[in-house]
């Protein structure tokens, strides 16, 4: 399976399912998930800020958890499901409540941190649908934004939590 040319030309086949779509590709065994999503899958919503796990711009969901794709090897997820920011909105007409409410709150400026911020916020609300302000701060501590000052982002997360809780209640009635 392993092509034994020079190290750098080595490719290894890989099958990923990203946002429900299958990708059969061949990438170096050391390739980061971040690069594969952007370059091989053409999904450039996932951003690289720092490349060392500190800023969260590259956050994706794997195995049901938010992680930094700059610190993941693509081949860890052979035959697995990955959700990137492109998979957040249910369809082209409808955004996720977090996306809607972030726009409404004016929580987006340059936008570079936003894909990761949204993935981080989704992870937070899934674990804790009714977070206190302190819990929102802690829950988004892995996502840096250099523009907004966070207040409007936190507001959007609070509001989205409420919408998602109401939806949940509606579904339970």
């Amino acid at each position, binding site marked *: 399976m392993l092509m034994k040319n020079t190290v750098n030309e080595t490719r*290894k086949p890989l099958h990923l399912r990203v946002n429900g779509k299958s990708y059969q590709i061949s990438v170096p065994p*050391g390739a980061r998930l971040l*690069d594969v999503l952007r370059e091989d899958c053409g999904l450039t919503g996932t951003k690289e800020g720092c490349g060392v*796990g500190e800023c*969260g711009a590259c956050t994706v969901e794997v195995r049901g958890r938010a*992680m930094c794709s700059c610190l993941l*090897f693509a081949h*860890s997820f052979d035959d697995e499901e990955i959700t990137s920011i492109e998979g957040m909105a249910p369809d082209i007409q409808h955004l996720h409540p977090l996306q809607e409410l972030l726009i409404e709150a004016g929580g987006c400026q340059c936008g570079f941190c936003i894909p990761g911020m949204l993935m981080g916020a989704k992870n937070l609300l899934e674990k804790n649908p009714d977070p206190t302000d302190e819990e929102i701060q802690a829950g988004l501590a*892995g996502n840096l934004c250099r523009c907004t000052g966070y207040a409007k982002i936190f507001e959007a997360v609070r509001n989205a939590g409420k919408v998602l809780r109401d939806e949940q209640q509606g579904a339970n009635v």
Partner: protein
Amino acid sequence: MTSHSVETYVANPVEDFIRAESIEQALEVRAKFGSECYPLVGGTDLLVLMRAGRWSPRVILDLSRIPGFADIRQTDSELVFGAGATAADCLANEFIRTNFPAMYKSCAWLGGPQIQNAGSLGGNMATASPAGDTVPCVIALEGTVVLKSKRGERTVSAEEFAIRPRKTVMEEDELIAEIRVPLANLASDPRGFQPDAMKVPKLHTVVPRPPFGSGGAPDSWMTNDFLKAGPRLAQVISIVSMAGFVEMSGPRTVKRLRLAFGCAGPKTMMGKSASAVVEGKELTEELIEEAVRAVQQDITPLSDVRGTAEYKRMLCSNYARLFLQDVGGFKLTGTRKASETLA
């Protein structure tokens, strides 16, 4: 199918990537490639160090999918962490929150949520950084590390596992399989049963121990806690950390004290002199000050970008004081300046 040039990818000059589906398969690979093969769980140390050019593995051995490798379970006598258990797994574990507040706190602020979702206790231990936050917690509670290889299995005390930064007693063909902590050291802890205090725990101070009820202190009780200083709460390498564990034989009488300091030497440093000062004695404010001074004999912090040696020494003594004052039910007198502590 498009094929990109190698420049497309951040160059990780790795020759092969093997995702083990069983521990037996992992041990085979480890035996075959030895030091050229790097185990991987969360990658939160491995990829950072590879990117910095400090590590260049030939083969990556991914352990993250081995069934059961991340389980946290209890035997009759031990709390057992599979080496792949992540900080997030610890935070989701009710027993750890209530009985092992030190571990809970160290995981609650280990990096940020994304790092907690990926980073494992085995990785924290194997990296052997004196700044690994979960390591002092395991050591203070007298935990052990279970190493496996094709040759068999052995258990080493967590205190003896690391030798100096990035150097451990683990052989080239071994893997960390488990980290274990005796349940006898995790008997019900008054501190942990305060869900509100533990939700977003404060790191730079103790979780206040609730006062004992009308019956007074039980004859025998124990508690543990973790304190950490950093320029901010999340995403930072500790300037200094301390895990404390104490077993008491009366309201203020100390039977056993274990203080484990992070970033205070080439590996986790044990405050053995402080233990000698207080063990078998009743805590008084004077005795605590004597123990706090004794801490200085057992630590050798260096000055670096995160703080001067003097500042780190001050923090170690302040943390020991906070922990012991809270254990003894004394007023927390807060922190002292270096000139007072080090005199």
